[in-house]
């Protein structure tokens, strides 16, 4: 697969706890009047918390080698994904029979730990690189806006199944780790690296989404739901570290095709009107 490695994660513990609490609370709001069948409602709104698969940009984590002082230097960025809960809200309206449109907003955020290592060759000696290593964190934020069509079906009075799909617009902010490199000073024994840097890259990309939502209504208007969706887009994002040093030594600016979206599993509250 080009562009990234998918990593599935188990449903986050906070998300699971939240779902249990919601069920308990909403279960207490008993309303015995179930006069309205599921599809009689025209509008709905939902808010979810869940987990989403995600991908690392390969080139942001592969070693980058460069020519310096008649030798090869190397920058490595070892990145560990630090997943955060994904938040999604959606609302929609049934327009005709079982069909309707829905709009949604989703925010997925990661805060990854990165160990940055830089080896710069010595100007006078082979195989005697000056080494620098430091840890930092980089943030990856993916916001998407959906405008989807849906088909829904009532499974009894309390349960409603909805399938949806359509275009999704992604706005991505990806931080790239690098190293700030200062001037070389005789006798060149110390690394000229001064510290890590983080550069923000942005991209906007159109993609698509398909998914399903299963809602169980505990009262006439309030319920809980489980959502599973798969969305996909790919954006070219520059992954070269910033700074004059890398501008000078890199043979070509590095960019990578980063896979956006992924599989989202979430749960939350549902309201219908």
């Amino acid at each position: 697969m080009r562009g990234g490695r998918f990593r599935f994660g188990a449903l986050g513990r906070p998300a699971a706890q939240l779902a249990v609490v919601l069920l308990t609370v909403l279960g207490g709001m008993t309303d015995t009047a179930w006069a309205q069948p599921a599809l009689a409602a025209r509008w709905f709104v939902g808010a979810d918390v869940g987990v989403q698969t995600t991908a690392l940009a390969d080139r942001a984590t592969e070693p980058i080698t460069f020519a310096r002082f008649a030798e090869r230097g190397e920058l490595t960025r070892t990145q560990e994904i630090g997943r955060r809960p994904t938040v999604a809200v959606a609302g929609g309206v049934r327009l005709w029979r079982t069909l309707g449109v829905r709009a949604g907003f989703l925010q997925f955020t990661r805060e990854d730990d990165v160990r940055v290592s830089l080896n710069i060759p010595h100007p006078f000696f082979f195989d005697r690189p000056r080494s620098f290593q430091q840890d930092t964190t980089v943030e990856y934020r993916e916001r998407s806006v959906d405008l989807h069509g849906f088909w829904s079906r009532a499974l009894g009075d309390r349960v409603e199944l909805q399938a949806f799909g359509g275009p999704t617009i992604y706005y991505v902010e990806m931080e790239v780790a690098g190293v700030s490199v200062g001037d070389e000073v005789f006798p060149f024994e110390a690394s000229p690296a001064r510290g890590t840097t983080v550069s923000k890259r942005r991209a906007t990309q159109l993609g698509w989404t398909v998914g399903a939502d299963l809602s169980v209504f505990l009262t006439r208007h309030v319920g809980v739901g489980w959502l599973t969706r798969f969305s996909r887009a790919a954006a070219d994002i520059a992954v070269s570290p910033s700074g004059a040093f890398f501008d000078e030594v890199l043979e070509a600016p590095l960019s990578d095709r980063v896979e956006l979206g992924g599989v989202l599993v979430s749960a939350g509250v549902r309201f219908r009107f």
Partner: protein
Amino acid sequence: MTRRRRTPSLLGIAFAALLACNADADAQDGLRQRTFAATAGLALRQADILADRLARRGELRLRLVQADTVLPGRLHQRLVQRHDGLPVHGGELARQLHGGLTVSVFGTLYSDIDVDTTPTLSSDAARAIIQARAGAPINPTAAPMLTVLPQADGTYLLTYEASVFTRNDLRRYFVDAHSGAIVDEYSRLTKQGTVGTGIGVLGDRKKIAVTPVGGVFLADDSLRPADVLTYDMRGDVERVLRVLSGTSALTVADLAADADNFWEQPAEVDGHAYSGWTYDYFFRSFGRRGVDGNNLRIISLVHPVQRDAILTASARDIDLFYLNAFYCPGCGPDGNGILVYGEGLPDPFTVAGSTVDFFTGALDIVAHELTHAVTFFTSRLGTRDVPGALNEAFSDIMGTAVEFFFQKPGDGPLKADYLVGEDIISPLLAGINRSLEDPQRFGDPDHLSGLFTGFGDRGGVHTNSTIASHAFYLAIEGGTNRTSGVSVRGVGASRRQQVAKAFFRAFAFMLPSNATFEIARAATLQAAREIDPTGALQTALTDAWRAVGVH
């Protein structure tokens, strides 16, 4: 090559509009290349609007945003030109922003690009072509990339672009994505061209600091604080003599030079590299900045004679320029001293059965000669009799210390040991080689009782030097003196630098020019006391001097 029908692009139309009102947009090659230098007025507005429009159309892509480190609040964008998603080589704008307003736009853009972006050559085929030309593999993280390459005649080519690090260069290649022809290539090392690589006398690969001038690389070290200059005298011994006497100047044309920065003259490589290493040793070990302490230039002459002309060489030339290396204080046009390194002997000539290679091939010899220069600018120890022996001893001690600083301990070539000149003489030869560990091995005294008192060798400066340099050895490694039978417990190899520091302080700063062995002993003990208050260093030195008969 497949070409698209040429249609006026937004760039072309914009260029025409710009030209009508923009004196800062230079017209070059008809309407196809434009250089922007817009800093104010309508020109700036037009350039700014054009950049925004092209960015929205995807013809310019933001590559980098940097905050100005000099003027807070300023941002600098770099926008690279794309055509059908491919980079256009050389097409780039640099836009400066302040508070959201554009302050300046500089750069070059290309218009009316009419090249089809579908290659007929595969990326793998392009990789193979480039690797075959370069003789080296392409970095896996930078595979051949499709690029639009503007041509001098105003046309465009679809190419694969890749950079390859060869053994001595970083080259960028452009391969026609249809025909497979290499249409352009050039070096990318211009910004870091002050380091070259070469093969030394013993076949080892090393780096040398050089200066690129006019398409060639010169043995002029521009990385160290002092100018380290190595001149290739091309075997013109008469010229060498004139240079030494100050009647002929050295010019840039005399500097050792190489066209591709992969140096293949081993005498030049080692002479230049080892001079730099010795400078580094004195700086890093003693904080000394060059031979005079003030970064005086270091001039070395190599190839003073033609090796193959030995049959017609005079006895003086053979002794001085084939089988010797020397520091000539006060020599040269500026009177600040010059180092000269012997050429060695051509095959099959030998000295008493020993082959002799270029004298620059031994790190300890280069360091030995440069230490003579340090001595000249410090204690000015004499050059005959006992002061001369101390002068030579100091050079041998520093030469050995430099070896241990840069080379791994051991026997054989390019290893640090207590032999002098072992890397260029085979088998080792009394009269040229010396041993600080066992002076008697080459007939040199290891005890004051063996002091040579004749007239030869300027009163035995080389042979008698081992009395002091053997004390240096004993203070570090310990052992029993073969003549006196006195045993010394050395401070150990881990403290070799400390012993060297004591000798440096004593010989450079404390000794008078007419010093005796006794004064040398007292000075080194004084230096040791001040360096190591625990007394261990002083004890070892006291025992070492006693072992060699100096009380």
